[in-house]
């Protein structure tokens, strides 16, 4: 459907304007669907998804409903709205065997007490290695300072390191766990998305 000429975002806006002026519902729905397609072409899947969600299902034929659902599934996937994608999949009557791999953010947070363990659990091995080395190194230095008789320095230095690095490492581990879950969910549903295309 895409043609040469104006920017897809402009075409989408024109569709919106024409939909606003449309005399009947069928024309309005057609234009909203066209707008969604232009937005997807422009790489604005989130807006495309919002646009198709504005089309009401009642009164549509079976084929039209199926097409609308397919579009919603595609755009929600492309927009990264995986929770919506799962709900729409249930609506479509698709059952998927198995479960995507999951990492608990609570576990990642608790494990972060051991330098690098939370990140390793969340699958971010590179950051886990760096954090572990920094943690192990600082512990070794603290022990060394203590052995040299610099007790206050060992305590204060360790305290500062803990104060500056532990919250950041914990936050990063939680973020990594969330990213892992999104990635895992995407991998799990990729075959369905490919089939929809």
């Amino acid at each position, binding site marked *: 459907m895409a043609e040469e000429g104006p920017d897809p975002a402009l075409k989408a806006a024109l569709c919106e304007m024409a939909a606003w002026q449309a005399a009947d519902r069928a024309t309005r729905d057609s234009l909203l669907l066209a707008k969604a397609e232009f937005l997807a072409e422009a790489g604005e899947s989130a807006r495309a998804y919002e646009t198709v969600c504005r089309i009401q299902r009642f009164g549509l034929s079976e084929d039209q409903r199926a097409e609308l659902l397919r579009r919603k599934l595609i755009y929600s996937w492309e927009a990264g709205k995986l929770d919506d994608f799962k709900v729409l999949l249930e609506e479509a009557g698709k059952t998927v065997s198995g479960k995507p791999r999951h990492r608990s953010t609570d576990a990642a947070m608790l494990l972060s007490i051991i330098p690098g363990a939370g990140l390793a659990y969340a699958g971010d091995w590179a950051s886990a290695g760096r954090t572990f080395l920094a943690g192990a190194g600082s512990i070794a*230095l603290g022990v060394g300072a203590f052995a040299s008789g610099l007790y206050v320095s060992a305590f204060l230095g360790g305290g500062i390191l803990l104060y500056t690095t532990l919250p950041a490492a914990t936050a990063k581990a939680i973020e990594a766990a969330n990213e892992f879950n999104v990635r895992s969910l995407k991998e799990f549903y990729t075959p369905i998305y490919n089939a929809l295309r």
Partner: protein
Amino acid sequence: MNALVLAALLLLAPAPDAPAASPAWPKVRGPFSWADRVMNSTTIARSGGIYALRAKTLALYTPAFDARLRFGPFSSVTPGFEGGVPTFSADFDGDSSVGQLSATPSLGFFSYALGSKLYEDAAALLFTPGVFAPSDTLQYLRGVTAYDIHDFSLAADCFAAIPEGSPYAVKAKSFLDVWNSTPEIPNYKPKSPLLAGVMSAVIPGSGKIYAGDLRSGVSTLLIVGALGGMAAESWIKLGGRDWRTIALSSVFGLFYIGNIYGSALSVSVIRNTYQDAEKATLLFDLRIPLHQF
């Protein structure tokens, strides 16, 4: 030796990640603007309290998108898009065509689009050159759209282009009056950078607390205090001439001086932040019926 490496490690300790997106921070004006740019460019500075304070008002400054970046300058004609009548068809199920669409300026549509938060659509139509002929109405609609996406700078540019005598001139001027003003900050007593510096020289971090940045002040107190403790212990146990003492004292000295300078700077930064936030609030709550076309 160990204490020195410990201090070096401390300096190299990873700071919390900087924000992923890099929207422009509110501009700091005045003599400290250059220093603010330097501080903004460092990862460590972004974890400080001043920036956390700024983050609270960031949403007010972050436009949904940059219309200028996306649609380019206002005055040129898009190739293949002449006369304001683009043609394309749209099919729902492959059978029916809805025919030709035309870009007719309609104030009613823009009222609907802005009211329904379809800002991107309104901006695409208004900011793309060649869609509508240049007019005061177009300029005003651009300004209102920019205002609605909280891009006040772009809105000011659009409103400034409206000539006197236009029916929109009064509203545009009302907006520009607020935009160009330096509003007073309610419940904020002017602070002295000198006093903040002196306070931080006596008790590290206290100047920042005085300036209104409690979190950064406490953080500074802990870090500078701990470094001071380490340097003092090394001085007592190893002597003033020992290289470890010299190294630790140098690190402490750097942090100590930085703390004084940072405290003096934070007075200006926080004042400007409050001022920008106040201006944004005033613009946000503008009591001018901009949407009545």
